[in-house]
Each structure stands twice: as C-alpha cells, then as structure tokens.
C-alpha cells in the first residue's frame, strides 16, 4: 500500500484519473489529499454549514470515484472539473434543502407548492448579501458586478431569478455578469504579462 501511495504521489492529476477510473484507492487518496481542502472550502462557502459541507464534499468525491473515467482532459484541469462537481452538488443541496424547509400551514395546495422556491430566493439572497465576504477576484469588482456573479456562482440562482431578486431587467443582469467576468479575466491576463 505504502509503495503504491508513494508512486501515486509522483503522478500528475491527469495521470491519476485513469487509475481512479480503474478503481485504484491510492490514486484516489492522493487526489483527495491534493484537492479535498479546496473542495470542502468551496462546499462550505456555498452551503454555509459544516455538516452539510461535509456531506456535499463526500458525495462529490464519491461521484468522481465512480465516474473518474468520464474526466475529459481536453476541457480543463482535473482540479477545475472536480471543483465544478462540488459546486453543482452544493447547489443541488441548497435547492433540496429549500424544498424541504418547513412550510406554513396552508390548506391551499398550490400555495404550498410555490413556497419553497420563494423561500430559497429570499433567505439565500439575504444570507449572501449580508454574510458573504467577497474575496479575491470577486472582491476587486465593482459591487453591482460582484453581486450578480456571487448570486449565480455561489448561490446557484439563474439570471432570471437574479433579475427578480435585484429588481433589474434580465439584460442588465447578463451584461453585468459579462462585464465582471471580462474584468477578472483581464486582470488575470495582465498578471501573466
């Protein structure tokens, strides 16, 4: 085991993936040790509590373990792929938690069905506006652009939901997303120059 682990440690992520696809636990362990911290941090940032972040990270890594063979190196790094799996799981978790939130005691069934989405919208958006400390690339953006990107990427809201939350036309929301991403990208390119 130790020998296999040492061998796996010398491999790049892209070389580990085929081994993970062949169900090699040591390769998977190395992958977790490299990216588990970032994955858990991202999950925590999205779902906002530790137990849920743990569940989300676990599910994400299990799905990577089971579908390792599906990783496509042409589409980016293993780390980005892995973090996008975590992000999607975390967003799914937020949505299902909202759907399970305690509902008011209405007799009207249609009212019951409509509530979860609205609850999620209001509570999540509020939590994101008040609690989220915008760091790194996002922190350098003008507030209106940072806010739409925050709500989309970390809140899992669609552009039309964001338009409703912020009371803006959809075109404005999409425009701000574009401007914000362009700005982050521009800074990255400058940093490289």
């Amino acid at each position, binding site marked *: 085991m130790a020998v296999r682990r040492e061998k796996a440690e010398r491999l790049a992520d892209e070389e580990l993936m085929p081994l993970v696809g062949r169900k090699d636990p040591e390769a998977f362990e190395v992958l977790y040790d490299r990216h588990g911290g*970032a994955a858990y941090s991202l999950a925590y940032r999205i779902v906002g509590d530790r137990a849920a972040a*743990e569940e989300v990270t676990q599910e994400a890594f299990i799905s990577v373990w089971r579908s390792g063979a599906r990783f496509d190196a042409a589409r980016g790094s293993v780390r980005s792929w892995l973090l996008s799996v975590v992000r999607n799981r975390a967003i799914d978790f937020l949505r299902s938690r909202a759907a399970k939130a305690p509902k008011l005691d209405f007799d009207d069934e249609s009212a019951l069905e409509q509530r979860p989405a609205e609850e999620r919208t209001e509570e999540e958006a509020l939590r994101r506006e008040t609690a989220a400390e915008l760091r790194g690339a996002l922190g350098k953006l003008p507030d209106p652009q940072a806010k739409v990107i925050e709500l989309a990427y970390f809140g899992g809201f669609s552009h039309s939901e964001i338009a409703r939350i912020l009371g803006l036309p959809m075109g404005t929301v999409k*425009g701000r997303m574009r401007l914000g991403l362009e700005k982050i990208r521009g800074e990255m390119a400058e940093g490289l120059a």
Partner: protein
Amino acid sequence: MSASDHGRWSDELAAYALGALERDEADAFERHLAGCERCREELRWLQPAVQTLPESVERTEPPPQLRESLMAAVRAEARQARERTEPAAPRRSRGWLLKPAAGLAVVALLVAGAVGYEVGKDGAGNGGGTTVERQVGGIDVKMVQEGNSGTLQLAGVPQLPPDKVLEAWVEREGKVEAVPALFVPDRHGKAEARIADMSDVSTVMVTEEPRGGSDQPTGEPIVAMAVPQ
C-alpha cells in the same frame, strides 16, 4: 448559424459560463455553441475567470473523519470491483455498488451509496453504547450499537412499491453478508432493523429488494454507513 444569430447568443455567454442559464436555455445555447467558433473562443477566454472563483474562497479545513469515511467507502468498492473481475473469486452478485440501479424508486431519490460517519457517545450512558448518526441523501440514519449487537434506525425513507422490501447488509472483513432482516418503512417513513452480530463489521448498508429478500444485493445501497470499529 448565421452571423446575426451570434449577436443574440453572445449575451448569454457569461451567464452560461456561470451556470446561470435555465436548463432549456443552456441546451439551446449549447446547440448554438456547437456551430459558432466565435462563441467557443469567447467561452474559452472567459472560462478561467469562472475557474478562479472557487479558488478565491476562504480556506476551511475539512474534518479528518471526512477523509476516513470517504476512503472506507472507496476501499470497499474497490474490493468489490476486484472480486468481480477476478474469475477465481467466489460468486457474488454482479454489479454490487456499481451497477446503475435503474427503476428503483427509492434509489432514484437518493444519492446512492453516500456514506456517513459521525460518532457520538450515547447520552443514555448505557455502558459503552455508541450511536452513529448521519443524514444520507435525505434519509436520517442512526446506528445504535450496544455490545455486540446494534439497531439501524432510518427516518425519512420514501415509500416503497408494494412488491419491494428493504434488506440490511453488513460488510465484515471485506465480505458483504445479508443480515436476516427484511423491513419496510412505516407511513411516517421510519424503518428499523436489528443487527444481531456487529463484530468486525465495517459498513452497514440497506438496499431495496424484491419481496422475500435476496441472497446478494441486487442494486446500489440507499444507505451505506461506515461503523467505527
């Protein structure tokens, strides 16, 4: 794809990269993307900006038991996969843990095989009683262990089709064994199975099986829980 068409879609690009298009909008955009080199190029340019977002998150250390339970689950599956591919290995149900459990109503609602692992001492102080408790894909799982035996308590289990039952399994020294316990959730979604012999058990699992039970699991577990030794 005409050039004028492109103008309309290029507005969607950032929203798509951020995962902020609705499902049908994303599908439509992907159809355009397939035929529009300009959009593909712009997307390639913007993608690193999106990829930097998860990296800008404040670091929070994951709890060590996350790694432990993850590796326990992974090693168990690797062992099963090896046994399946080695012809000399004793006969075992094909596809255990890995086969897509198509058509199983319960499984479809759950994250199949997610493994929980969280230890707390039993508050009742029953001399060495251990309770492991965990939420797995919407099901509350509680494993109460006392001495050599244990009780698996589930809450929030979706209703089963009438021809199905739940069956409990244990993994003991790398081998999956049926627990002589078939059970069904009550109408509140609660279900309980008694496991008489917990010695050397590393994982407790529950699958949905045809009425009467099976000798080997036939689908993915709806619950799998690592048990502290």
